[in-house]
């Protein structure tokens, strides 16, 4: 009973903290946030969605290093429709997401025939393949030089974009959290641990992995279309292999085992370079330092740091208490 109430208390504190952070983020533009930093934060919101969608895919035991390709499909579809057909971005964005989900499900059928590291390899080839397709259709996608002056969602001011992307991120995170903590997430985790046991209890494990990839694509595409109509330029580099790897790094540095992991990882790795603008040449070194520190000292990633520190504080206290108890015990007889 005691641990139960303690758990509830900790949960309430977490919820309160999240509300404060989200409230603060919503209030920031009113508190005189610089336009430059607002720009940075919009990027953070978008990449948090992608990093978390990658973690969602990881729940079913599938690691992708070509995830940016799904962003690309959504982004390019929406951008091309809006630019060349003159449709409103508000219509093309859902279409972009829909197209990506359909493509996601279609490619998932052959891709999920392989598991684990082989799936990861296939995802890499898919990422490269999508870039090649981008070259073939350079009449619309612009090939290397990319597609520019994509219609905007809002006029040239950043504040509406800020609110839009923040709201999008909060909604996406809420849905992903719900997915993970419902039976859907439980089933995916079961499939990840043992597909043979999972199928012995009636789970159609191949379908579950297809479903997981499709849902993950949905969120990646949402981030993709938001990206396209905010940055209004898409090039070959935007969704390259590097981007996929970056997303993977955001997730792992933050801690792939925790829901807050990709959020923490993306925020830290995207905001630090902006704070150290004057030291721009050294940013790769700082990145490397962060990576190494996390790799060696934080097995749970950045998001696991509070729990780790708590353990550190608690341990000496407990050791002291045990020592004093021992002393008392020795003196007692």
């Amino acid at each position: 009973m005691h641990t139960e109430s303690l758990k509830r208390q900790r949960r309430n504190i977490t919820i309160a903290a999240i509300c404060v952070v989200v409230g603060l983020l919503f209030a920031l533009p009113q508190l005189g946030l610089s336009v430059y930093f607002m720009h940075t934060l919009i990027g953070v919101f978008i990449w948090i969605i992608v990093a978390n969608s990658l973690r969602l895919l990881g729940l079913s035991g599938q690691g992708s290093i070509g995830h940016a390709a799904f962003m690309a499909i959504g982004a390019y579809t929406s951008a091309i429709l809006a630019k060349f057909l003159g449709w409103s971005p508000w219509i093309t964005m859902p279409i972009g997401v829909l197209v990506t989900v359909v493509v996601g499900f279609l490619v998932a059928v052959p891709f999920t025939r392989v598991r684990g590291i082989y799936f990861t390899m296939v995802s890499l080839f898919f990422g490269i393949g999508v870039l090649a397709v981008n070259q073939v259709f350079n009449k619309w996608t612009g090939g290397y030089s990319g597609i520019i002056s994509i219609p905007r969602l809002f006029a040239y001011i950043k504040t509406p974009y800020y609110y839009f992307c923040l709201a999008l991120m909060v909604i996406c995170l809420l849905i992903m959290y719900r997915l993970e903590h419902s039976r859907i997430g439980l089933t995916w985790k079961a499939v990840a641990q043992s597909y043979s046991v999972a199928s012995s209890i009636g789970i159609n494990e191949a379908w579950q992995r297809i479903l997981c990839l499709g849902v993950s694509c949905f969120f990646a595409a949402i981030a993709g279309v938001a990206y396209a109509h905010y940055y209004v330029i898409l090039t070959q580099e935007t969704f390259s292999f590097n981007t996929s790897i970056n997303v993977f790094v955001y997730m792992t540095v933050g801690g792939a085992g925790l829901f807050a992991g990709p959020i923490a990882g993306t925020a830290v790795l995207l905001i630090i370079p902006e704070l150290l603008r004057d030291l721009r040449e050294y940013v790769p070194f700082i990145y490397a330092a962060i990576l190494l520190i996390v790799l060696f000292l934080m097995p749970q990633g950045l998001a696991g740091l509070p729990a780790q520190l708590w353990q550190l504080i608690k341990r000496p206290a407990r050791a002291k208490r045990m020592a004093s108890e021992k002393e008392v015990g020795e003196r007692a007889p």
Partner: protein
Amino acid sequence: MLLDIHGLTKNFGGLIAVDHLSMSVGEGQIVGLIGPNGAGKTTVFNLITGVIRPSAGKVEFDGKDVTGKSPHILAKSGIGRTFQLTPLFTDFTTLENVVASYYLHPRSGFWDSLFNTPKYRHNEAYALEQSLKILDMVGLSKVKDERAKNLPHGYQKMLGIARALAVQPRLLMLDEPLGGMNTDEITFTMDIMAKVRGLGMTILVIEHNMQILDLCDRVVAINFGQKIGEGSVKDIRNNPDVIKAYLGEQNVA
């Protein structure tokens, strides 16, 4: 007959792992499948449960042809099974293992789960309640919050059975449930099996340990993929072919 197998055959290249095996399991029985190492017992299990496809032959469950169907379809039609080696979701707790196994009955759809509908909440409450009951029955209540990989071997085996029971099967297939257990655990497991039969389930069990024969209504003995004996426990104990397979030629009196 609940389970009927006709002429089941499996070749791995030139090796014939199972050779024209026919057997049947009647409703409510406990049937033992015995044989020395490498006799093809686990292969027979995997053929029945659809993990591998037979080269020839037919498997009928409850009068329906289920040859070569996928494992999850067989689970749906009412076959629960345990595994010899990887019996668990190792990162889940004991309770989570069983709750996760309540996947088919009741079944919650994607949208129900996502939107946390009353139907979904009802299903989950039911799954939790039943899981606790099953854990109670197999004596794992005290370790329900322990991670499965940290459990002692005997408990892991029991959890495997608990998981298979969550499928609410009509036929429970146990792959060496007594493997690596000590005497107390063996007695306990056999009690559970008797209890499970009491619940109206049929059991097909693979075992090395001959103690299992005390429970069996019928026994099928195989060696090199071929049936060498079938019948009551007494028949099998006195069957010269079976004794030969287990003890070798010279020991036959």
